């Protein structure tokens, strides 16, 4: 479905989408990055002393071309898009939830080194399931089911190694089980 949106629909369709603001933000960020080009693409910045090539091999050429393209195209696209009234309260609500999910994912990854693979997935899946609006029995079944599936796919199926969590240093559980969890 996403592909339909990507390929068929105009970015400036009938629904207010915030496209103009997004392109404006891209324009500003690209402009800032372009102003930093001298500092961020210094030849030999990693200690290499012998230089090779001419102007075409200068490290600044490719980013400069890419950023210039972004700036010009984003500016033209933002200017040529129709004025739109964006529901900022709605946008804050949607992006707020998205940021909430993103934050819980970061916390879950950090917890992997403390609680281990399975418990971190369980906590993350529970948070997302809750934020997705599931309640009651499904709030328990979905995270547990997802965690079991992840353990089966990654730990049993692909046998992917994960760092030994601190939890297993504190509590004594069989090595085989540690390998799964």
């Amino acid at each position, binding site marked *: 479905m996403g592909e339909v949106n990507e390929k068929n629909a105009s970015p400036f369709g009938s629904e207010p989408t915030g496209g103009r603001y997004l392109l404006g933000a891209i324009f500003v960020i690209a402009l800032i990055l372009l102003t930093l080009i001298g500092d961020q693409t210094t030849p030999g910045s990693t200690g290499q002393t012998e230089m090779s090539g001419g102007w075409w091999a200068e490290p600044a050429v490719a980013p400069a071309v*890419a950023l210039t393209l972004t700036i010009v195209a984003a500016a033209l696209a933002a200017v040529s898009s129709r004025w739109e009234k964006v529901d900022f309260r709605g946008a804050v609500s949607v992006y707020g939830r998205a940021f909430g999910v993103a934050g819980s994912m970061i916390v879950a990854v950090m917890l992997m080194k403390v609680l281990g693979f399975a418990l971190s997935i369980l906590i993350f899946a529970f948070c997302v399931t809750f934020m997705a609006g599931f309640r009651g029995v499904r709030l328990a079944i979905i995270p547990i089911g997802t965690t079991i599936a992840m353990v089966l796919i990654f730990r049993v199926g692909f046998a992917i190694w994960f760092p030994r969590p601190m939890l297993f240093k504190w509590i004594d559980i069989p090595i085989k089980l540690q390998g799964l969890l």
Partner: protein
Amino acid sequence: MLETTLLGIQQLASIEIWIVLVAGSLLGIILGAIPGIGPGVGIALLLPVTYAMEPLQGITLLMGLYAAGWYGGAIPAITINTPGTGVNVLTTYDGYPMAKDGQPQRALSLAYASSFFGGIFAVIVLMVAAWPLAALSKYLTSVDLGMAALLAMVLVVVAHRGAELASFAMLGVGLFVSTIGLETAYGSARYTFDTTWMMAGVPLISMILGLFALSQAFSLLFSDRKIDKSKTEIDRRLLGGFIEVCRYPKVLLRSAGFGVGMGVLPGVGEFLAQFFAYTTARSGSKTPERFGKGAPEGIIASETANNAVPPAALVPLLSLGIPGEAFTAMMLTVFIVHGVDPGPTLFADHKDFVAGLYVSLFVMNFLIVGILLVGTNWIAKLATINDRLLAVIIMCLVMVGTFSRNYRLTDTIIAIFFGLVGFALRRANIPLVPMILGLVLGPIMERYFRQGIGAAGGDLTIFVTRPVSLVFLVIICLLVVTSVRNAVRRLTAGG
């Protein structure tokens, strides 16, 4: 050809290849049949797994997802009027009315048979066309290949009609991101802001997982799609379509031709192929008034064209090393990881890989049809899975997929960043594909242009003195001028 086929069959004498063939086909059908996911998400999620495989196994797995996804996408398009993937939209026009008329088996069977014909036809074209094109590409210089990469990017951008300027901006973003990290000519750290973790550049896997999978998961999380579960009961009599399609040979061949033609061209792909196939089938039909109301030619045209595209899209990738859209761009990373250079040398140095790929693509179409004939009733029910549940599963997969690569939190943070960016872009209907293409093709283009301009001693007239480069340059200029003119016209028309 016979030698290649025999070599290919030899490659299939391995249990691993059969496992990825079956897994790719099955997963592709399943992901295609679930509206809102599609093969793009599947390819992004499985990309890290394929890096650990042999190139043939990895590419076969991804091609299975790509090709089978379009087959599977027809199921919800016909049964519940919701295309499983974007490219099955036209199948709903005639598939759903036919199903509503009490003939869902006939509609599905026609879709499977047409897809099968389109797939097989395109594999044969791939076998015939890729090698000569690769042989010709031996005579291309770095400048020509760099210009070909630029042409591919411009074609992709201008294919996003009505969004060309935004697409150019996204292409620029992708190209810029591809320059981040250590570059070798001058030993410079570009835009790393003095951090060590950015020296290796933005991890491709994290970016792809973020842009394709995580952003889609965010979208699914806020979805309120309503599903009618009563319409997913299908019985197993699905062979009739394989006989019925034979009554429409012209529609089949024309649609397959459109699929192959559009598949080879970068940026065009399934959408334009099925549009041309459908409109041509309608204008050539004796009963055009039946189109949109359950015409079998409508289903045949749409599905044949769709499924002819994936193998055809491999032609420029294998022969020139230039992907034409996001899926083959992701596949190119598998080649890069394994140090296999697609292009002229691939056909000389890795004959077994190429032959194995041809035969596995051929076999894959039989496997997919076999799975569908047996399991359609079960697969059709997948379309009723709650979108928000899918979001939970995809998010967990992304989290593990990004972290397990290097056990670095930064990889996950990058995926989350691009997931949020992709989510915002999706909501704004700004295309993501040019960004991925810029990211994958950027380093390739930079390398070719550095080599080419360097060999000419910095003389830029090399772009117009090389005939091939000149032709590409003229096409690029025409495309850019036309798309800018169209954008200006729209702007002035809109006041």
